[in-house]
């Protein structure tokens, strides 16, 4: 009886002890997490919810309390605005011009630099370096490259073809010109990730294929591509998301022109919010972006085989 008593008392003391340890760890854990969680909730989660809320109002930028609830009017207006669809079309065109090129060229350069060649470090530095520049520097340099009177391109193109386009003022060439600038700017990111992914492919797979007499094309198709699939999907999605949100290049280089040919979704959003002060409407455009880009991420997640792979 007394032995049993003592035992149970001891047991409960041990339990109290572990309870106390657990409580202390829980308190410490929450304290350590708190600073980030505060910033995260205030500056990321809260705006995300507030944006949805704002998009349902004819938002009064000066007196928010006088905003008028309009339910889905902003979304309806967006769907009925031809300029919005022009912006969507231009953005998709820009995505089509940049994403495949950035992924394929990045892959080719990565496979090339992965070979036993001289100056690999130099090449890596050259291909990566533009990625560290800010969009203003990139845009301003390329304005000088494209300048019709004294720029670099046109002299040589005229020499070869007789005449050259007025790049940034041309309906036909303005968007491709922005795409070329963007490829120069961000190729390095894909290149570095794909190079690292290629270096992660076990060399014995290639040796086995060589012994089986596989051609280098077959080795590429059956080993390189499948082994690099996660990295290729990753850069494709990251590039898609980045290209879909293109803003700085047209904002600085063309202002959306000529004749709205380089007006993009984020430009459209920016103008609605900060030129026309239509915050509710701009928030609705923001949510359109959100749905499109989250959709793309989720499709990629599915393609990549979910969390288990």
């Amino acid at each position: 009886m007394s032995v049993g008593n003592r035992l149970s008392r001891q047991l409960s003391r041990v339990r109290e002890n572990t309870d106390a340890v657990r409580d202390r760890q829980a308190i410490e854990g929450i304290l350590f997490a708190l600073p980030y969680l505060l910033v995260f909730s205030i500056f990321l989660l809260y705006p995300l919810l507030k944006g949805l809320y704002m998009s349902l109002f004819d938002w009064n930028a000066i007196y928010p309390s006088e905003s008028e609830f309009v339910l889905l009017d902003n979304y309806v207006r967006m769907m009925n605005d031809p300029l919005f669809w022009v912006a969507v079309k231009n953005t998709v065109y820009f995505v089509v011009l940049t994403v495949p090129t950035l992924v394929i060229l990045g892959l080719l350069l990565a496979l090339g630099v992965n070979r036993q060649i001289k100056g690999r470090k130099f090449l890596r530095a050259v291909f990566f370096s533009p990625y560290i520049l800010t969009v203003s520097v990139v845009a301003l340099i390329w304005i000088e490259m494209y300048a019709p009177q004294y720029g670099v391109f046109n002299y040589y193109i005229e020499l070869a073809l007789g005449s050259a386009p007025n790049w940034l003022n041309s309906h036909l060439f303005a968007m491709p010109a922005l795409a070329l600038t963007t490829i120069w700017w961000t190729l390095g990111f894909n290149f570095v990730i794909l190079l690292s992914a290629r270096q992660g492919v076990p060399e014995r797979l290639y040796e086995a294929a060589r012994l089986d007499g596989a051609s280098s094309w077959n080795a590429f198709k059956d080993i390189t591509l499948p082994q690099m699939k996660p990295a290729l999907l990753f850069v494709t999605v990251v590039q898609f998301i980045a290209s879909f949100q293109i803003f700085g290049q047209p904002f600085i280089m063309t202002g959306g022109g000529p004749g709205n040919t380089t007006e993009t979704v984020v430009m459209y959003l920016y103008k609605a919010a900060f030129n026309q002060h239509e915050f509710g409407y701009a928030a609705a455009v923001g949510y359109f972006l959100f749905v499109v880009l989250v959709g793309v991420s989720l499709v990629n997640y599915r393609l990549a085989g979910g969390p288990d792979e």
Partner: protein
Amino acid sequence: MSDETGVGREGRRFLDVESLRTAGLYVGLYGVAFLFLLPYLWMLSLSVKPRDEMFSKVPHWIPSEVTFDWYAFVLSESMLARWMLNTFAIAGATTVLVLVIDSLIAFSLTRLDWPGQRIVLSVIIASFMVPAYVNIVPLYTLVADLGLVSSFAGVILPLTAGPLGVFLLVQFFRDFPDEIEEAARLDGFSTFQIYSRLMLPLMKSPLTALALFTFVTSWNQFLWPLIVLQSEASYTLPIGLVTLSSSQVFQPGLMMAATMLASLPLFVVFLLLQDYLISAVRIQGTTG
């Protein structure tokens, strides 16, 4: 006999194809590298070119004489130096804040047990899908309500909310051996000491990579500072450069001198710490 010559011929043909391929590889890679360098050369060339050669129809890659007038002019006539200091302050403060709060929460999520931590981690990871520009309108109203328009804090705080650093550090902190942590606890280390004296020094390389990446991306921010910073004296370099290009009498030499000066600090960082920067990008690819 005939077999052998057959093999020999095959071997030589193979060799020729191989050396052709190698030559093609060199031409391709160095050709692209040359094209990649052209914009830099053109920027440099324009920035030191005298005015009368600037608008020549035939591009003078190498100016007949080198002048530093454009540099002197842009430094004396614009607020470039001020903008550089502002950018440095914003990028520096963002980096320090990100390192501190991200490492604290990554430590807490991987080394301490508390209720709800799994949900917290999945919410943070899910927030990766929130595209950077979606939030700008509600975020602007929030920053305006807090009275932070045109202040550095208004730029910095939203930049520190991103999930990338937490995500990266969680990967590394998770792999830290339990035995070392338990031994330290038996030696009487407090939780904070385990974090500050044990964990942080051993996590130097992921922390450095994260620091560099954060510094470069916040240095380069464009849309958000453009919205928040509304007085010329508070501009960062990316914003200042663009207003310079639209406000001054258009002078390519002047603009290229400004872009040279504006990109110089990051080029120095890049040349010195290339490997860390590249590894910061690489880590994103392997964990993404």
